[in-house]
């Protein structure tokens, strides 16, 4: 396939990915509470209303924290499980991996209700910690699915070489394994983050008085007074992430230039 065709495809692909999101700002500034064309006029009211929507803003903050922490823990558990199953033979391996992957197969409502029962029986109070627990559980299988292929194609003699050169297992992981599976780890973090940020059912059952953003938004379905405010919030978050991404890219380029180092090895 020629590069030009692929590049064209990628451009269309990215446009498709952003298609709904690009409309977000339009309705965030459209002077109507109805999400529909034709547009009625420009307004900053929805943006301003965010100032008053304390619960909404808090929910967004809670969600970001939960998504970050859950994706990190899920990736770490995923690394442990993957490294164990890809490298070693041990009794009960099939069972173990099956049990860990199971949340992917079960209906979320089941996971939600029974997690709630387990959590309450164990005497925990519902908080962001319980949501994190639930999200780690459902994100881990996705992380494993990604990390697995990373590990499978890693030459085991590289790690042996590190051990042989006197590094401990932990340092070997840090200095050799981790850098080599970095694209997998970053992808795993992103997938965990994305799933957690948008997960509603489990977050609903495990949330106490600090709802996540999806819980808040979904529960507004029946009385959707603030859908455009949510669009405004979404716009802000979108802009924020794009700005952060651009910023980090600029920083990376500058530091690359300063070190006069062409980014040579694999992607991330």
């Amino acid at each position: 396939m020629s590069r030009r065709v692929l590049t064209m495809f990628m451009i269309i692909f990215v446009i498709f990915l952003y298609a709904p999101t690009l409309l977000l700002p339009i309705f965030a500034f459209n002077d109507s509470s109805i999400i529909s064309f034709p547009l009625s006029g420009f307004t900053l009211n929805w943006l301003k209303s965010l100032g008053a929507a304390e619960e909404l803003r808090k929910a967004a903050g809670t969600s970001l924290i939960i998504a970050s922490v859950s994706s990190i823990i899920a990736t770490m558990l995923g690394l442990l499980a993957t490294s164990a199953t890809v490298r070693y033979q041990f009794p009960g391996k099939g069972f173990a991996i099956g049990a860990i992957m199971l949340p992917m197969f079960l209906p979320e409502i089941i996971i939600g209700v029974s997690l709630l029962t387990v959590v309450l029986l164990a005497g925990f109070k519902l908080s962001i910690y319980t949501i994190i627990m639930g999200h780690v559980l459902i994100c881990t299988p996705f992380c494993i699915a990604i990390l697995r292929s990373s590990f499978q194609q890693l030459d085991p003699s590289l790690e042996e070489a590190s051990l042989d050169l006197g590094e401990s297992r932990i340092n070997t992981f840090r200095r050799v394994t981790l850098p080599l599976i970095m694209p997998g780890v970053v992808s795993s973090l992103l997938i965990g983050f994305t799933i957690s940020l948008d997960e509603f059912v489990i977050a609903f059952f495990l949330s106490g008085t600090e709802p996540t953003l999806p819980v808040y938004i979904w529960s507004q379905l029946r009385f959707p007074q603030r859908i455009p405010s949510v669009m405004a919030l979404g716009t802000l978050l979108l802009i924020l992430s794009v700005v952060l991404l651009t910023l980090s890219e600029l920083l990376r380029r500058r530091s690359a230039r300063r070190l006069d180092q062409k980014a040579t090895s694999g992607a991330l």
Partner: protein
Amino acid sequence: MIKSAQLDSDARRGLSQISLPLAFSVLLLAAPLAILLAMSFWTQDFLTLDRTFTLANFKETWTSPIYRTLMLRSLKISIIVTVLTVGLAYPAAYYMSFVAPNNRKAMLVFLITIPFWTSYLMRIFLWKVILGFNGVVNGSLIGLGFIDTPLDWISYNQFAVIITLSHAWLPFAVLPIFVVMEKVNRSYLEAAQDLGDTPFQRFRRITLPLSMPGVVAATLIVFIPTIGDYVTPKLVGGPDGLMIANMIEIQFKNANNAPLGAALALSALLLVSSVAGIFVWLNRRYLKAEGAA
């Protein structure tokens, strides 16, 4: 020559590494699964559970035409969504791994996940704006003079479910394929070319088989959860777009028939696992055949 696995100390190491994630899953999930399993053999009358063993729920699940229709429809939609998603994701991942310059890769990975950080509900609302009656698609088509009246087959039906779901799962399909492609040793490609392969042959004989683990992962990541989705069909499916998960959801909640819900869920689980199993098996055969050729 000699595998470094299969050792006692390695077995211990493997067990100790997996113990934490396993303990986490078992502690939190043993209960749900046991409840689900037990419940599927019980019956419920409003709020009272009757714990007498019965296979009635499974019988109903497997004989009643409504569940069969929903089950097959869900399977069909999931398969179409998976094929579409993985099919679109593959060239994108290929571009990211083989065409894009190294220093752009990280940015691209973020670029394709960022749109999915806005709430799914919002994205669905916006999809309706795009596909809807006076929406972007219809508006453009009318504006360009292709059609006179809005197309109504693009919203509130299975088509809309497929589009919305495929879109939602795209980044989840791109990432695993990309990760595997990043690991493909570039010298294999050079070797293949060196041995006289055309770029297309090289793709078919080297890149595709080597990236197959990613395709498998992507397929499972998309296929399995898709069949369990009830939100998308509820919001964009219209009357003919409902899926089995909607029925499971209703049984557990409004209909107060958790046992039937459990039987439906377990049957769906069985169906999904078999299809996924067949897929993995076919893939192994393909790789073997490819290796032999």
